[in-house]
Every structure is written in structure tokens, then in C-alpha cells.
């Protein structure tokens, strides 16, 4: 590995954290619980989603432990159903959906556009409280006996054939949905209306474009999930018949409405991660992102096309053949903008000065794993192959590649990249690089065998399986153990760095972007004066002239 690095820290013997920053400005619990400061809210979110991530991770551990043996011997099959359902619900709604937007997006979008805060700070705080209420309700449901419908709540199983906490979980997700809607709404208004002078749309960092696209999906898609959950709750409580075949209802209507949101939801999850990758790829190859316009427009294209493809989750459920045709074709098309991004990032790397700091390791991990996950998505877009692969471990592997190998790696890349800016301190580089590599290795061991299991025919959501699948399952569980270590390490060293990390200074990565031109941690109002944007995004020549003008000593 190259020993060169772009990290540039101030002289540690004399460096201090700035006295006045958003953390020190006001003290006391109430100043945090009633804050309007987007950076504090982002910090609160970061702590909350980490908490839920580890709960979801523990549930994943239980799943993999059960699948070590072909029999359902660790837990009853009903319990296993509850474990994977809760794993899905917590990971999707309480970790992945808010991960980048509510933490990094909240923290950095105002700074990247040169604003003092988001447009609606009180709504931002409300978002967090809704998230907590939803999370609390979901935990209550889990401890009260869980829900075993799968995170997809498919009818009529969820409405007529199970007696678990469907209503409670449904309400919890309903509330979490509004948390997400308000975050997205806030971002859209902020990005449209609060850019500083000179900050045109095409000078915005691509992180902002990606979050903007994801926010459109949040605002337009999530309400449909909300009404769907209302209908499920009404069906369970009052027996109205909307999804009940005996009363003339159609269970498939639920799936249409549910997936109308839940497919855009996967783009809500991945787009902000792609935004992070744009930032890190540029910074760690010291080069502007290749094809800025293409990447920006592809974010919006993914958002728009993402609304047209939902029935590819329903190919075997009874939709018409013509629907299968149309949705299959549209799904193939939606892969194109994602591929455009991968190509553009690859071309950014070409002839760049690449260094291998931790965020870049995660970035490389993302590019490889997301590509594999995305390509397997194209196999599934073809309805012919989907009929054989759906509801098998191939699907499980596919979405874990894009969500964990893709999105979670991007989240970790972002957290490491912006950690010095948020906290003023650097994390320890060697152990973080080790953690990234351990994660990558663990991930591949966990999920690659699942592609094979899926093609061999192992169904998903089963606690027991035919014995010939055991070897691959053992591989997968072994990998999961390694993966768990890889995720535990950042929790430990990042916490450690809060006290003992090196002082980072304003711009340890020598990155472009307005957030790097101010102190770490930032002031409450972000900038001493509203900046005026007079250069393009990722303008490293501008950065060099800034350094030339920098005063390093007086007299």
C-alpha cells in the first residue's frame, strides 16, 4: 500500500480545538433536546441510528447462527420469522433510510450550499422526535412478541393469518415515514431557496444533488406507504375487506401500493450514499468528478425512473403478463443511470493522484460491491430469470450487496471522511484501514455464497433447509462473524478519537467544498459571514490559490 497520503494536520503540539463551535456554544441537556441547529440534530441522529444499527445487527447475528445448521434448532420457526422481520424493519426504516440524509445530509447540506441552517429547523427537530417515537414503538413491538410477516407485510398473511404485532409495527413505520418526509421536504426547500450568492445548481457538490434526488423520492413516495399501512391497520382492526378476497378485495392491491413506495425507498437509501462516493472519489484522487453534469442528471434520472419499476417485486404474484413486460423493460432502463455513475467515478480515478485513506478504501469497496449487486439486479429485472430466482437467497444476496456492500460502505466512508469536520479530531488511521479491509473480507464471505445458494434453489425466510446447502451457509455465518468485528471496530475507535484523536484542523483532506473552508467543528452559524461562491465544484486549482494566499505566520 502506498505510504503517501494527502492528510495534512496542523502541528499537534500547538493545535487546539476552536473554543467557539456548535458543541461548546450552548451547554446542557435542554440545549440539545430543543435545538434548531442542524448540526446538533445530525449528531443526535447519528447516535440514534447507531443504536438501531446494532440492534438490527444483533438480529442478523441470530439469523446467521440459526442457519449454521439445516434444522430449525436454535429457535422455533415462528421466532425465526420474527427475527428476520425485525431485522428488516429496523435496518431499512431505522437505519438505512435515515442514515446518510439525517446525519451527513443534515450536517453538511447547509454548509455545502453556504447557508446558516436548513430552511425549517423546527421541522428538522420534529423529524428526529418522530424518528425516536417510531423507534420506541418498534422496539416495544419487538419486545411484546415481535412481528413475523417479513418487513414487507404481505397480505393476506399480515391481515388475516397472523396474530403478531402487525398494528403496532405498522404504526411505528407510519410515524417513521413522516420523519423521513419532513427531512426530505426540508432538504428540497433548502436546496432551492437557500443557496449562497454565486452558488448555481451546477456548482453544487454532487452530494447535494444526490440528496436532492433522494428527497424528491421521500416526499412523493413515502405518503403512499403511509396510506397503505393505514389500510392494513384498518383491515386488521375493522375487517373492512379492502385486501380480503372473501369480501371481494384484492391482496395484490396491497403489494402495488406497498411497492410503489418500497421500490423508490431503495433509491432513497442508495442515492445519498452515491453522493458520498462522489465526494470521496474526487478528494482522494485530487481530481474533479468526471462528467459532473452526467452524474448530477443521473441522480435525478434514478429518482424519476425509480417510480416506474415497482412491480418487478411482484412478477410471480399474479400481475398481468403485459405488466411483467413493461416493468421488466423499465427496470432494465433504471440500471443505466446507476451505471453511468460508476463509469464516471472510474474515469475520475483515471490519471488521478490516488491515495488510500480509509474513506477511499470504503469507496473502492463500494464501487466493486455495488457494481456486483447492481448487475445481479439486472438478472432479476429479466422476468424470465426472476421467476426462478425470486424468493431465494439470490435476492437476499442481491439486496445485501447493494445495501450493505454499497450503502453501508458509503455511509462509513462518509462518516470517516467528515468525522474530522464534525468533531475536530482525526480517527486513528491504521486501525480504521484495518477495519475497512476486515469489513470487505467479511462481507464477501457472508454474502457471496448466498448468490450460489439462491441459484441452487435455497428459499429465503426459511429457518430450516436441505442439508446439501449447509456448507455454503456455514461459510456465510463465518463471514458474518468477521463482518461483525469489522463494524464493531469503528464504534470503538471513533468513540476513542473523540477524546484522544489528533486535532484535525480546518481541512485535513485538502478537499474543495465550502464545509472544508471553515473551522472544525464548525460554528453554530456555520460561517462567520455568508460565503460567495465564485468557482466551480471540485476546483482543485482554486484550492491551490487559496493555500498560496494563506497566511501561516505573522511578522
Amino acid at each position, binding site marked *: 500500500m502506498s505510504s503517501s497520503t494527502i492528510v495534512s494536520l496542523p502541528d499537534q503540539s500547538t493545535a487546539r480545538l476552536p473554543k467557539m463551535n456548535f458543541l461548546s456554544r450552548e451547554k446542557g441537556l435542554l440545549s440539545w433536546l430543543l435545538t434548531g441547529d442542524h448540526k446538533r440534530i445530525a449528531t443526535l441522529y447519528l447516535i440514534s441510528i447507531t443504536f438501531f444499527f446494532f440492534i438490527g445487527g444483533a438480529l442478523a447475528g441470530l439469523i446467521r447462527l440459526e442457519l449454521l445448521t439445516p434444522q430449525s434448532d436454535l429457535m422455533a420457526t415462528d421466532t425465526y420469522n420474527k427475527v428476520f422481520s425485525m431485522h428488516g424493519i429496523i435496518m431499512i426504516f431505522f437505519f438505512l433510510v435515515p442514515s446518510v440524509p439525517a446525519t451527513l445530509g443534515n450536517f453538511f447540506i447547509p454548509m455545502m450550499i453556504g447557508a446558516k441552517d436548513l430552511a425549517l429547523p423546527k421541522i428538522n427537530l420534529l423529524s428526529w422526535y418522530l424518528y425516536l417515537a417510531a423507534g420506541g414503538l418498534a422496539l416495544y413491538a419487538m419486545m411484546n412478541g415481535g412481528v413475523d410477516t417479513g418487513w414487507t407485510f404481505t397480505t393476506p398473511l399480515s391481515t388475516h393469518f397472523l396474530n403478531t404485532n402487525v398494528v403496532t409495527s405498522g404504526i411505528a413505520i407510519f410515524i417513521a415515514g413522516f420523519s423521513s418526509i419532513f427531512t426530505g421536504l426540508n432538504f428540497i426547500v433548502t436546496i432551492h431557496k437557500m443557496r449562497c450568492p454565486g452558488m448555481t445548481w451546477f456548482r453544487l457538490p454532487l452530494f447535494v444533488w444526490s440528496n436532492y434526488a433522494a428527497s424528491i423520492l421521500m416526499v412523493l413516495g413515502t405518503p403512499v406507504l403511509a396510506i397503505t399501512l393505514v389500510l392494513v391497520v384498518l383491515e386488521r382492526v375493522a375487517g373492512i375487506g379492502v385486501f380480503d378476497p372473501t369480501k371481494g378485495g384484492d391482496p395484490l392491491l396491497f403489494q402495488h401500493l406497498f411497492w410503489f413506495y418500497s421500490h423508490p425507498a431503495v433509491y432513497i437509501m442508495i442515492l445519498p450514499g452515491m453522493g458520498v462516493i462522489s465526494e470521496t472519489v474526487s478528494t482522494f484522487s485530487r481530481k474533479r468528478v468526471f462528467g459532473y453534469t452526467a452524474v448530477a442528471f443521473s441522480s435525478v434520472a434514478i429518482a424519476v425512473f425509480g417510480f*416506474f419499476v415497482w412491480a418487478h417485486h411482484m412478477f410471480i404474484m399474479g400481475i398481468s403478463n403485459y405488466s411483467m413486460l413493461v416493468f421488466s423493460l423499465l427496470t432494465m432502463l433504471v440500471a443505466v443511470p446507476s451505471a453511468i455513475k460508476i463509469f464516471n467515478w472510474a474515469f475520475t480515478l483515471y490519471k488521478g493522484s490516488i491515495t488510500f485513506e480509509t474513506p477511499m478504501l470504503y469507496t473502492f469497496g463500494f464501487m466493486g460491491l455495488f457494481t456486483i449487486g447492481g448487475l445481479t439486479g439486472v438478472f432479476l429485472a429479466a422476468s424470465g430469470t426472476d421467476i426462478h430466482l425470486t424468493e431465494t437467497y439470490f435476492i437476499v444476496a442481491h439486496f445485501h450487496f447493494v445495501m450493505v456492500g454499497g450503502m453501508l460502505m458509503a455511509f462509513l466512508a462518509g462518516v470517516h471522511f467528515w468525522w474530522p469536520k464534525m468533531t475536530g479530531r482525526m480517527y486513528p488511521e491504521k486501525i480504521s484501514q484495518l477495519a475497512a479491509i476486515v469489513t470487505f473480507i467479511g462481507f464477501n464471505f457472508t454474502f457471496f455464497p448466498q448468490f450460489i445458494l439462491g441459484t441452487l434453489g435455497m428459499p429465503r425466510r426459511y429457518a430450516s433447509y436441505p442439508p446439501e446447502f449447509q456448507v455454503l451457509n456455514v461459510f456465510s455465518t463465518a463471514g458474518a462473524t468477521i463482518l461483525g468485528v469489522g463494524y464493531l471496530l469503528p464504534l470503538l475507535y471513533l468513540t476513542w478519537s473523540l477524546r484522544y484523536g489528533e486535532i484535525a484542523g480546518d481541512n485535513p483532506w485538502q478537499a474543495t467544498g465550502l464545509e472544508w473552508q471553515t473551522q472544525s467543528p464548525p460554528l453554530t452559524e456555520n460561517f462567520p459571514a455568508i460565503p460567495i461562491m465564485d468557482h466551480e465544484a471540485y476546483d482543485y486549482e482554486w484550492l491551490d490559490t487559496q493555500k498560496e494566499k494563506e497566511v501561516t505566520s505573522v511578522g
Partner: protein
Amino acid sequence: MSAPHDKDFESIEEHEHEHHIVSPKIYLTIVAILLVMTATTVGVSYLDMGLFNPIVALAIAAFKMVLVVLFFMHVKYSTKLTKLTVGAGVFTFLVLVGMTLSDYMTRAWGRW
């Protein structure tokens, strides 16, 4: 500040000068039309036009909606962004309804 005129940084005077105040006369005209169209849609529902009954009913409702949106909600006098936002909402709604219905309408088209 030497930045070009940024709409977001107007003073109150500039903002009010651009802010079009719709006159009560227009509102009166619109509410009259809306009430007449309501009577019309009720009357038409008593006629037997077969397939066209729902089409006419929805067309009248859509016309009323357009009037409320353009005049009561001031979209006619609003920025392009507002118009685009309304359009985006209508479009997404139509995608939800249209593409879902297309599945139901094509189910009977036979297997191949």
C-alpha cells in the same frame, strides 16, 4: 455584494412589488363558475350517457380543480418552480393510478 441579482435576496419592497395580489372580482367570477359547474355535474349525472358519464364527471371535476389551483391558490401568478411542483404532484399521482390500473386492466388479456 457584487453577486448578480439573486431572487432569494430581494428586499421586502422588491418582493411585494412582484407579489401579485389577485382581485376579489376574479375570485367572485371563479366561485360563480365553480358553483355553476357543481350544478352541471349533478344535472349531467341524471342523464344516461353510458360510458361518458364518468368521463364527463371527472372532466368537470378536473376543470374545477384547475380553476381552484390557478386562481384561489394563485398558481397562475406564481413562479415557474411552483408550477413545476404542482405538475410533479399531478404526474406522480397519475403514475400511481395509471400504472396500477394498467395491471388490472390487462389481466384479462389472455396468456401467451
